[in-house]
């Protein structure tokens, strides 16, 4: 798969469980070795390294865990967890640690007194903010957000999304935003890639992709999302998400695709530009009906 994320953008990655979203994040971080291919960070090749070396070269890439409560040590005060990250990255002076923690907690909208609390004393939204503070301390350039709104109430989710937007502007961050919540992705992402079984099947600006989805899988995914206006759009997608242990031949989506033809089972489709900045990997994308979904 090919992927390019521009500085300062929020790049969304969507797909069902098992499509490879998390593996992609782990590989970008350097926690997992790539089998083939190259990863460039600010034009520098950072792939092809042993995991420890790869991680060191990619210190500017940081990750916010999907479940921030599980990512915090329940026996440690939050401040100690925050200081540990700084120490690992070479900031060992106590006074400087404390100054940076205070500054970062303020940036994510938390009181400095929070540093003395234990994780179980925090609400879901506060844990989420601590998770963000923890990586902001390390002054990253690229932040991988894994399901940043999963399990949050609507009102808290709105506050977290607003905070993410403000932090991006203030610290000049680039986000890789992994989510299965299409309403949220549509709302906050500049560009979006749709993954299916380890492949990117469609990629484009969020605006174009949601307005005019080209790949049959993207269309099914968008149609399945529950909408506030109660309108169920398009056909449903039969079958369970397939497993990487039994990858279909040709186009990996063809066994579930209503538009599949014999070619789809025989040959893997190449990525083609359906429009400027809109890429689709489907033999039949030209035949996909382009009825327009509402713009709202």
């Amino acid at each position, binding site marked *: 798969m090919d992927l390019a994320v521009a500085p300062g953008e929020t790049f969304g990655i969507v797909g*069902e469980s098992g499509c490879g979203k998390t593996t992609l994040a782990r590989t970008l971080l350097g926690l997992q070795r790539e089998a083939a291919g190259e990863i460039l960070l600010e034009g520098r090749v950072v792939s092809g390294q042993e995991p420890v070396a790869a991680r060191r070269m990619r210190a500017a890439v940081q990750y916010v865990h999907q479940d921030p409560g599980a990512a915090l040590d329940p026996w440690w005060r939050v401040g100690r967890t925050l200081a540990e990250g700084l120490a690992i990255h070479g900031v060992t002076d106590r006074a400087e640690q404390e100054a940076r923690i205070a500054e970062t907690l303020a940036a994510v909208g938390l009181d400095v007194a929070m540093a003395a609390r234990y994780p179980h004393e925090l609400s879901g939204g506060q844990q989420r903010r601590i998770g963000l503070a923890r990586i902001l301390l390390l002054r990253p350039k690229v932040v991988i957000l894994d399901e940043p709104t999963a399990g949050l109430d609507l009102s*808290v989710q*709105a506050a977290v999304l607003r905070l993410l937007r403000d932090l991006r502007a203030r610290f000049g961050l680039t986000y890789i935003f992994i989510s299965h919540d299409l309403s949220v992705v549509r*709302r906050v992402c500049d560009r979006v890639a749709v993954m299916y079984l380890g492949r990117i099947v469609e990629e484009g600006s969020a605006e174009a992709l949601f307005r005019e989805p080209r790949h049959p899988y993207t269309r099914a995914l968008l149609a*399945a999302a529950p909408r506030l206006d109660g309108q169920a759009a398009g056909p449903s997608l039969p079958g369970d998400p397939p497993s990487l242990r039994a990858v279909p031949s040709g186009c990996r989506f063809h066994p579930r695709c209503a538009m599949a033809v014999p070619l789809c089972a025989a040959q893997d489709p190449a990525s083609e530009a359906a429009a400027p900045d809109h890429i689709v990997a489907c033999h039949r994308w030209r035949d996909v009906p382009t009825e327009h979904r509402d713009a709202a």
Partner: protein
Amino acid sequence: MNDSPMPSPLLAVEALSVHLRTDAGLARILDDVSLTVPPGRTVGVVGESGCGKTTLMRAILGILPRSALVPRGAIRFEGRDILADCAASARGRIGFVPQDPYLSLNPVFRAGDQILEIMRRHAPGTRRDHRAKLIELFRAVQLPDPEAALEKYPHQFSGGQRQRLLIAAALSCDPALVVADEPTTALDVTTQREILALLRRLAAERGLSLLFVTHDFGVLAALCDSVTVLYAGRVAESGPTRAVLDAPRHPYTRLLLACHPDRASDLTGIPGTVPAATAQPAGCRFHPRCPIARADCANAPPPLLSLPGGRSIACPHHADALPEPALA
């Protein structure tokens, strides 16, 4: 969905209060909550964490924790007060679909045996009858190869299939009402859509009533005829789903819906947090966070006002416009 007037209720929750004794004092989890589920209708209960959704559901299912007190109220099901007289037979008539299909089946027993055990306790007939009925149910919930499914262990099913198993379990004793606790939150959207369609079809075919507890307004819009919005253990607003979603009246519902990514003009959130159940504010429980609160809001709990179109609002000031910054 159905727009004709509501017939007399199958389930009626009447002015129910539930308190819990905790180390931090008495937690007033539910206060004066009323709700009806007419036969054949789907009713949604929506609210954020800590609003009392789970406690309400547990009260209806008769599984409140031992530390719970019920100072006031009644729950009537098919005309009988099931809170006072929790006859096991009434429970067989209420099915339950839990939230997490991964945690709700015992991994060391065959899924079929776990459902047959429920039927042995609650449904008449022999084991042979139960097996035949379960295979028919597996077919109704569209599990592939129903006979073989009976012999399989939970890990041999996908998440969507496990939720189908649990729906079959909920239907196994011929319930009149099925209570579902966010049954699709653990699933992918494409699977969620299939499960919602299945629930809708089964409810229509079998004349079932559904009580659907959720925090997802999109799911609510897709499935429910009417909705009750809870805030901090009280009813904030109730009415037909479309009317409530299109024109919310209670300031809490208005602010909450403004947080939805499909609708938000800007992402704001609601200032403050839901109060702890041990420290509920006096008067209207939303008043400390409410942009249109007046002095009288802190005095007494606002009564539930009836509005045309089957709607009820627990806010005397619901006609006031919200200040622009709150919705900007």
